């Protein structure tokens, strides 16, 4: 990067299905205040505000203008970012680009969604082509169900493996005070939960959450003079997929699909030979249990077809050798505009050793995060504790 960029502060709201006690600006402001407090900074010192939020999920357009008092953006430079499930990660990525360019030194990035105010499923159907597939738009669950049926047929995984991911996420969430679904569930509970779209059951899917996350990014000089524990953004990569072509619905595809392409490019940039050795913790975007298994494989944490073995062996537990989503992940908290930013922020907390009860057992010097969204693209961010890592 042209200039080094650090995360010098951040914060998140509590995440819940109901937040009628706040309007959108009030909710966003909760996260912004926490981030400023964490960075020991005032709003006057921020020179750019980026807001990540999905279009029309809350029934308003141009939320960056509406919420200017809550975001702190009044009179400042700023823009809004809307990229689907990746929103939060794209917002961090754009913030880092702005700092790296040398034009801005202190950037506030915010991601939020207040899902209860609208009909996410209805708005998401607009992601499908109006004349080619929209009549069948099965919300996210239909897509992940097709992917799961393909995964099971290709590799011989079972619904039990999916249940293991469901349990890991919600048990981890119980250690995270901010998480939405803190459920003390067993594999049997997951297997007994209501069938939505075979083989996906209620506990295999993420919830619809309300919440916000905010992060402050800064240049090296600011970071070193102002921040006790800066977390460095070492590399970012984005890759898109093409609509109508098989991707995660065909797990054996030989095509260069977004998730593999993105990981390969990022690893090349950093000189990563084996991601399992290189990174100490992973925070990935898994709206459904099966997506987590595919991520294991596409990130190279194991060979193709062995993702379900990894969960079976408990390797990705908080105390395991390859901890994945100690926060509870998207399966436990999905406030869409914030979800991908929470991956980055939670990874930063791990590097700062400030994740609290869900801090992983091993020391964390480096972390990898992924965002994921429709129509199949990803933003990956690699973080480190020092500039030598």
């Amino acid at each position, binding site marked *: 990067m042209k200039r080094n960029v650090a995360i010098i502060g951040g914060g998140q709201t509590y995440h819940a299905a109901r937040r009628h006690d706040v309007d959108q600006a009030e909710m966003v402001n909760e996260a912004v205040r926490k981030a400023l407090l964490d960075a020991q900074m005032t709003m006057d010192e921020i020179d750019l505000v980026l807001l990540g939020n999905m279009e029309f999920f809350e*029934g308003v357009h141009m939320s960056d203008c509406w919420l200017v008092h809550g975001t702190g953006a009044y009179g400042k430079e700023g823009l809004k970012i809307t990229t689907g499930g990746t929103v939060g990660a794209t917002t961090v990525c754009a913030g880092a680009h702005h700092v790296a360019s040398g034009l801005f030194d202190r950037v506030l990035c915010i991601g939020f969604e207040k899902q209860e105010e609208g009909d996410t499923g209805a708005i998401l159907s607009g992601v499908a082509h109006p004349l080619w597939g929209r*009549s069948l738009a099965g919300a996210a669950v239909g897509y992940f169900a*097709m992917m799961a*049926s393909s995964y099971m047929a290709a590799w011989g995984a079972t619904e039990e493996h999916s249940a293991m991911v469901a349990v890991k996420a919600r048990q981890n969430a119980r250690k995270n005070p901010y998480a939405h679904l803190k459920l003390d569930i067993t594999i049997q509970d997951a297997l007994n939960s209501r069938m*939505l779209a075979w083989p996906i059951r209620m506990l295999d899917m993420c919830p619809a959450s309300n919440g916000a996350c905010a992060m402050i990014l800064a240049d090296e000089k600011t970071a070193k003079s102002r921040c006790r524990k800066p977390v460095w953004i070492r590399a970012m990569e984005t890759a898109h997929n093409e609509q109508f072509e098989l991707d995660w619905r065909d797990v054996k595809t030989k095509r260069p699909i977004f998730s593999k392409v993105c990981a390969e490019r990022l690893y090349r940039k950093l000189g990563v030979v084996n991601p399992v050795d290189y990174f100490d913790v992973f925070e990935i975007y898994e709206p459904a249990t099966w997506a987590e298994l595919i991520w294991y494989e596409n990130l190279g944490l194991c060979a193709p077809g062995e993702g379900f073995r990894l969960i079976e062996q408990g390797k990705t537990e908080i105390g395991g050798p390859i901890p994945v989503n100690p926060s509870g992940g998207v399966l436990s908290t999905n406030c869409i505009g914030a979800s991908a930013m929470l991956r980055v922020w939670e990874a930063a907390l791990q590097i700062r050793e400030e994740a609290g009860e869900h801090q992983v057992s091993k020391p964390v010097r480096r972390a990898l995060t992924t965002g994921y969204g429709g129509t199949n693209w990803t933003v990956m961010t690699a973080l480190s504790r020092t500039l030598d890592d």
Partner: protein
Amino acid sequence: MATKEKEWISIPMTVDVPYRFAAGEYLTKTLTELRDNGRIYAVECPKCKRVQLPPRIVCAECHVKNERWVELALEGTLAGFTIMYLPLTDPTTGKPHEPPFVYGSVRLDGATSVMDHFVDVEPDREKVWVGMRCRVVLRPREERIGDLSDIRFFEPLPGQKKPQPSTH
């Protein structure tokens, strides 16, 4: 004295917006062929040779213009499926599809892309599987209107049995 519960006001509202979406040159050709002649046309990229459906004017991978039209078979292979238990609303009509029903992604013979549609089988995992051969069932000519509903569903080719998983 009883404490009054704190009140939070939230106001319900509905936004109903009409749109008219242009299919454009390429998709219009495919949709009119489907309506008038019951045929499915895709385009082939001159460089990577991927046969793309719905047809796109430019190959996303090669950034070249797709110009060769290819008629696809009305048969293909199921690449992924689900048995849907939720009463999903059809966003184009506002009416729910009655669950349970099966739908999936089918790769028609000759195509690189897949196509999502209903599969006319019982919602029973023994009756539907990845790799199942399917054919397109069209509406009668006089009922076709030039969109994907001109295809009623995929149906399994007769005489197939679900392969049993290997024992090792």
